[in-house]
């Protein structure tokens, strides 16, 4: 028996106009219309959506495992507010004990002594 041919379509849905489209699952279809109809039938029997995308899987390019792994490993706290948590305590301290004029001369962030 000759095999029937279909394409895999990945389904992305948006639940709210301010939210991004999120990957839902995938369906097997021969046209985008069919993929959209099947996506509705398979994944939205209960909850609603504001928008639905289907993308043929072969149009999606992804990183291989090694690259994903490499990306995950790198620490990037210097790009985030993570390293600046100490600021809150300092601000509280200076609100209660404002720096005097002499204190303001010289000194670096890292060298300043709170107590």
């Amino acid at each position: 028996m000759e095999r029937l041919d279909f394409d895999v379509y990945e389904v992305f849905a948006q639940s709210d106009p301010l939210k991004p489209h999120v990957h839902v699952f995938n369906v097997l279809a021969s046209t985008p219309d069919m993929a959209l109809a099947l996506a509705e039938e398979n994944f939205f029997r209960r909850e609603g959506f504001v928008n639905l995308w289907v993308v043929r899987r072969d149009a999606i390019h992804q990183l291989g495992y090694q690259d994903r792994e490499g990306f995950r490993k790198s620490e990037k706290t210097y790009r985030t507010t993570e390293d600046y948590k100490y600021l809150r305590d300092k601000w509280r301290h200076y609100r209660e004990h404002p720096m005097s004029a002499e204190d303001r001369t010289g000194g670096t962030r890292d060298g300043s002594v709170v107590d």
Partner: protein
Amino acid sequence: MVEEQFTDQEAYFLERVDRGDRIEAEDWMPEDYRQQLVRLIAMHAVSEIMGALPEKEWVPRAPTLYRRLAITAKVQDEVGHGQLLIRVAEDLMRPWDKNREDIMEDLFTGRLKYHNVFHMATPTWADAGIIGWLVDGAAVITQGMSLSCSYAPYARALQRIVEEEGFHIQHGESICMALAEGTPMQRAMLQDALNRWWPALLMFFGPPEKSQLSTHQLRNIRYRIRSKTNEELRQRFFTKYVHRIWSLGLTIPDPTLRQDPVTKEWIYQQPDWNEFREIVNNHGPRSEARLGLRSTTYQEGEWVRRLISTAHRAG
């Protein structure tokens, strides 16, 4: 499995699994892992599809319009679960150049088995209730464990599935509760259904391991495809449901059933495991009829599948 025999690639794979990493379809995986997954997921997929049939028999006979809408929705969900799982299995079978047609073929030839419970008859409306309440209840215990499966696409499919099972179970509870609160005849019907289903419910989790795990189980546990034994899952089922069943004034057809007050382990009468083997080998009460229906429908739908395949795509 002796770990020293592994190649670097296999060792790295197991290390990923050990640290709780989830494996994606395109990642490198040992052939054995792929085979274990396909075995499990294809079986689960056809069980969902065959599992729609016992309750489907009650769609035209549901007692009220509301019950009819609800059971139709449930039957549709089960077929939907089959659809999700078949996609997961197909992606794994791609390197073997196999697809859903092979899964269906294996189902029809008996090479691929489906859950024992779906070979059983559903002579009354109470059977539909017991399926929703206790068969889906048992299934959720197994599927709940599988949410932690190392293979990410299967775990993602299960998240969607388990969410809908919540509705299935309450739908079943509601049917059983109504019968339990009903006339003496309705109560008797519910009791009869429970008597019919009890051995099948125990069989659902598979034979107890005693202290002997099968090679398949050992591998699946090593690969973090599963994390509990058949017996552990069955014990959970008892703990979750025995008291509830009793609270409706029903009798569980096992006079030996009791919980050890110290170990908390449930002592129970083993179902007939030879009968279990007969049933899953398609010699159950309704095996032939349901497989016949499934295969006729499949053949009759062949022209539709042909028409909607890419061969006929316009342009």
